[in-house]
């Protein structure tokens, strides 16, 4: 599904070239749940942004379903954002001027879904996340965990194949974090491909595969349910 080959990302300053990512080679199959880990500045978010078509690599190949997605036109990119992938952020990034309902509905409006269908779809999702009573509240009126749930709902309302989560639990305390991770796990069990960036070793374990980045280079790529503790030592 996702195929990255020799991806470089660097910035040129006067005297030197600073690499954020170097020779990244990564393949993600449909239905995978990948956790990307690494210290601050290791390039996790940049990698996620490149996968999410928010940032362009400086060199390398990137294709989705064997189709190169480098040098895509603006319109095609928007299309991928509307139909193929959803995003979750550490700071939730809900639109403050919109209610819970409207926040979840907005991607459908961009997709051009009819008003009636939109209502049904949003109602379904609100129901699933037990947020029907909160639909007319504004984001500031919700707890962090609830805000992130809205964030997830907004990300998946368009039924994307790929869910990209940039430290989805970073601003949450552990109980709420676990709730969010459980939700992601359920989504993955239903077949959605998920790539998350996280600092949290425990939450990384939810992934079926853990990738460790250091200084822009993939140091480890461990598949399966390998115990984290054994990797470290």
């Amino acid at each position, binding site marked *: 599904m996702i195929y990255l080959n020799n991806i470089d990302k660097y910035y040129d300053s006067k005297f030197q070239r600073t690499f954020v990512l170097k020779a990244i080679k990564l393949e993600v199959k449909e239905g995978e749940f990948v956790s990307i880990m690494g210290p601050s500045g290791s390039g996790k978010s940049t990698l996620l942004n490149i996968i999410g078509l*928010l940032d362009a690599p400086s060199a390398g190949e990137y294709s989705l379903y064997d189709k190169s997605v480098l040098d895509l036109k603006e319109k095609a990119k928007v299309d991928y954002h509307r139909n193929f992938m959803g995003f979750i952020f550490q700071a939730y990034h809900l639109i403050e001027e919109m209610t819970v309902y409207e926040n979840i509905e907005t991607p459908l409006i961009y997709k051009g879904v009819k008003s009636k269908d939109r209502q049904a779809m949003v109602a379904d999702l609100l129901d699933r996340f037990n947020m029907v009573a909160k639909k007319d509240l504004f984001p500031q009126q919700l707890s962090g965990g609830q805000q992130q749930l809205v964030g997830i709902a907004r990300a998946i309302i368009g039924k994307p194949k790929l869910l990209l989560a940039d430290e989805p639990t970073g601003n949450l305390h552990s109980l709420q974090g676990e709730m969010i991770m459980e939700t992601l796990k359920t989504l993955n069990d239903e077949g959605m491909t998920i790539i998350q960036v996280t600092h949290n070793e425990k939450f990384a374990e939810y992934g079926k595969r853990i990738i460790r980045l250091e200084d822009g280079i993939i140091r480890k790529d461990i598949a399966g349910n390998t115990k984290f503790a054994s990797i470290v030592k």
Partner: protein
Amino acid sequence: MIKHFLTNILRNVRHNKVFTFINLTNLVVGFAVFILFSVVVNYELDYDKFNTNYDQIYRVQTRQEDSYPTNFCTYSPAAFRYHLMADVPEVEQVLLMREVSGGAKGSGQFFTLPDGSQLYELNGYWSENSIFDIFTITLKEGNKSNALTEPGTIAISETLSKKLFPEGNALGKQVTVGKRFPVTVSAVYADFPQNSNLKATYLVSMATYPVLSGEQAYGENWTNISFDNYILLKKGADPKLVDAKIKDVFKNVKNFEKSSPYLHPLSKLHISPNSQPDVIVGLGIISLAAILVLVLASVNYVNLSLANSTQRSKEIGIKKVIGSSKKLIASQFLSETILHTLAATILALFVAQASFPLLNRILNRNIDFSIWGNGQLLIFILLVSLLVGVLSGLYPALVISAYNPVKVLKGKIFSNGGNSFSIKKVLVAAQFSISLFMLIVSFILFNHVNFILNKDLGFDNKNILYTEINPRDKMKFETVKTRMLQHPEIAGISFSSTIPFIGNIGGYVTWQGAAPDEKEMISRNYVNYDFIPTYNLKMAYGRNFSKEYPADNKGCIINETALKVFGWSDPIGKQIYLEGKPFSVVGVVKDFHPFSVHNPIPTYIMFLNNNVISGSTLLSVRFTGDEQKARSLITGELVTIFPNDPFEFKDFSVAFYLDDAIPFWQSMKRMFMFFAVVTLVISTIGLFGLILFTVKRRTKEIGVRKVLGSSVGSIYWQLSTEVIGMLGFAILVGCPGAAYIYKTMPGAYKEPLTASVFIIGIVLIAIIAQLTISFHVLKVAVSNPVEALRYE
């Protein structure tokens, strides 16, 4: 999607109340000014359009190549009517009119009211009956076909009819004009509209003219250029063709060889009566100022939008990530701007309508105008509003929609702001230059108006009542004087052909010692023995006219200006020559202002009259004590002396304030004040936006500085330095501009320019700028630096 847009926009309004308020105020001010002055321009250009024959009506005017200051005269001789226009095949109707003479009071006449008192009405005309065929006039009483055909008939306006015949039914009744001429009311017409160039309050039939004036052959006269000739051209006729046909008509008229008639269309009678572009230039300046204000407001809108977009960048980033295209975001912002401008326009329409009295005061006009009733204007303003909306929304929309979502979501958008910032600075500096300029000019004008109102006129203008009187029978002045001086309230009385500010008789003189070709244009006055003491004029040399010197009827008194012109060191006994006759100088009067204080003091010569009141004369009475009492006293005396002649005493100081120039200067002063305030408001908003932008851009920096222990004062100082540069620029541009206006300001006497007007203007602007900065700094100062420094 539209609903989504709308809720979005409304929520943003709610979310950014301060921003919305400032931005709307900015646009409302801009639009209200624009609307007001569009109305003025529209009103001026719409003059006379109510006439159904608008395109076919022309006034035949006279071009005089040898006259000064303008070659174009709106009047023409009566012979045009009978011997020229009536013979041109393109002409369908001719109309001869003439203002009724009123001497010093303007073209008017006295009417006897039902209670026997006299009413002076201006704007009276002699007119032919064809006026009803050419102009669109509604008759309330009478018949258009014969209202002004017979001698001894008068058509009066509805307003005048109500004054003369309060009980109504004026038709067929008699009115007495000038206490002696009875005329019959043959029609009552609806008052001419405000925007009519011709605003006659009454029309006396032209057939009455030869009877009352005694000029039987007026229709044969080619040299008395004091009539109004109007014509109605046939539909589709070419006025240029008519011009060509009539242009040589003066060829054989002695002394008028260089004159020629020309057709002046009704559409130009108001904006350019004597073919000079002054009104058009004035309208152009007003339009330019109004457009400028609107442009400044739009620029502010752009700056404020961009400044505010930092706050909204997150929203934009998210929208992009969840699938909104650039186009959608751009159109969202554009529609938001258009909605803002439309809302501002609608508000501005109300504001404009409500500020009409203010506008009338500023312009010294009496425009009665309903914006809502003028569909064309509304459509025009709506179109301008859309244009402004699109133009000022486009740039921010493009900039904002191009934000990179990754950077925006990490709060990095303005961290490295480039030099594009300086354009904004230049714009704000330009705004400040304009408002400083306007402020200083309005201060200069303010001083100037005070100066001319308080200038020493060289004579005592207090406690004087004057009247014009035109008695049927001659009257010895001494009789009048004796009767008046019985009353202790009357300090003095004199009569003369002109008095200061009222009337002027010109003429050329030569003088003893002048070069052979040398002559001097003078202003002359025929006075009696009492003129100089009544006005408290001071003698520089010699003496006043006196009965002890019978030869004084061959004498004259000159003013100091004349003395300088003639170059005499010992003036008494020297000769001047007027129309070939010699007069010897008996005295020199100290210079005083015979004309309004804007004009230089002329070469002025007084001659002695024969102390007998005959013909049109000005009586001046100096009184002591209460004016009302004195007025009723002298009016009572004069009525018994001249029972058959109408008159009305006026207060001299009123005449002084009514002098044309004073309302003009006051109007100019108010106009500049108005624009100064408007531009000041707009540039303050501009500065506000600029500082807001800076503060937003540097929130992080300021936060870091605060954490490091920087005081609020140093932050304040930092922002101030940005503004000081702009103020410097404004001073460099605004002050010389204002000084230039002072230099070119017309008027012979001006108060010297003082530094205070500049200092006050600069200080005012500086205070406003500092207040604006203080507002922002205070906001930053009370904010918690942690907020600014948080990762998200």
